[in-house]
């Protein structure tokens, strides 16, 4: 118990927070229509994963998970870059960042 106290709350709590963040991100992805906010919500979900991984890393006591988080941050950065440039391109074409506007392809 003492060791667990080192990281503050119990492991379960961090898992709970992580799931909550993930779900909130998912809700955001589903509710928001603004593409930038959508992108942010996805970042939120990735952070939930990061939190989870760091928790496990602490728990197992090795750094592998933290390296993984490191790579996730790398990928998130790249993804954000690409996402934003796609967004800009889409905005140039349709003068809107409302995802509801992008429904010409259907059926």
């Amino acid at each position: 118990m003492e060791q667990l106290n080192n990281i503050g709350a119990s492991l379960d709590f961090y898992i709970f927070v992580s799931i909550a963040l993930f779900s909130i991100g998912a809700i955001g992805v589903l509710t928001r229509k603004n593409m930038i906010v959508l992108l942010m919500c996805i970042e939120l979900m990735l952070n939930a994963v990061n939190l989870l991984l760091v928790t496990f890393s602490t728990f197992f006591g090795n750094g592998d998970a933290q390296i993984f988080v490191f790579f996730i941050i790398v990928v998130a950065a790249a993804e954000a870059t690409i996402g934003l440039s796609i967004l800009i391109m889409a905005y140039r074409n349709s003068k809107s960042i409302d995802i509801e506007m992008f429904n010409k392809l259907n059926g």
Partner: protein
Amino acid sequence: MSLQMISVILGSLTIASALMVVLSKHPIRSVIYLVITFFFISSMYILMNAQFLAIVNMIVYAGAIMVLFLFVLMLLNLNKEAEPETSRMGAITAVIAGGTLFLVMITALRDTFQYGKGYTPVKVQDAGLVEQLGKMLFSKYLVPFEISSILFIAAMVGAVLLAKREKQVID
């Protein structure tokens, strides 16, 4: 105030600010709340002795990525009118779906919530240090590290390709 109390408060604040990200009408507010969320998350990292990640999280996420977001928001110069309206029905459905996702995950993982019992984390203090991570990154995880350069090259080329305005041919 024990560490446990601090972490619970931090966790609650994290969730609250994350909720604000979703609930804020204006995207810039969302960005701000998101940065706040990242701060809370970073502080949790520190609590868990992952100092290096905490710093990286602050610098890369809160610093670089969020600034990029803000920059794009400014670039596109979206005013309030352009903010898309969320339909009530859609929102309710989405919240129900997300809530269900949450509940289902909690239900499925309910057994895990006695996870920590009987395990003894070792060398908690050392795992998250820069030295440790650096050694690992350049020995065990060298290949992924090198490979990630491809990702960056690709992302770079892609971003330039997409975001660049085509040359206007002037007669």
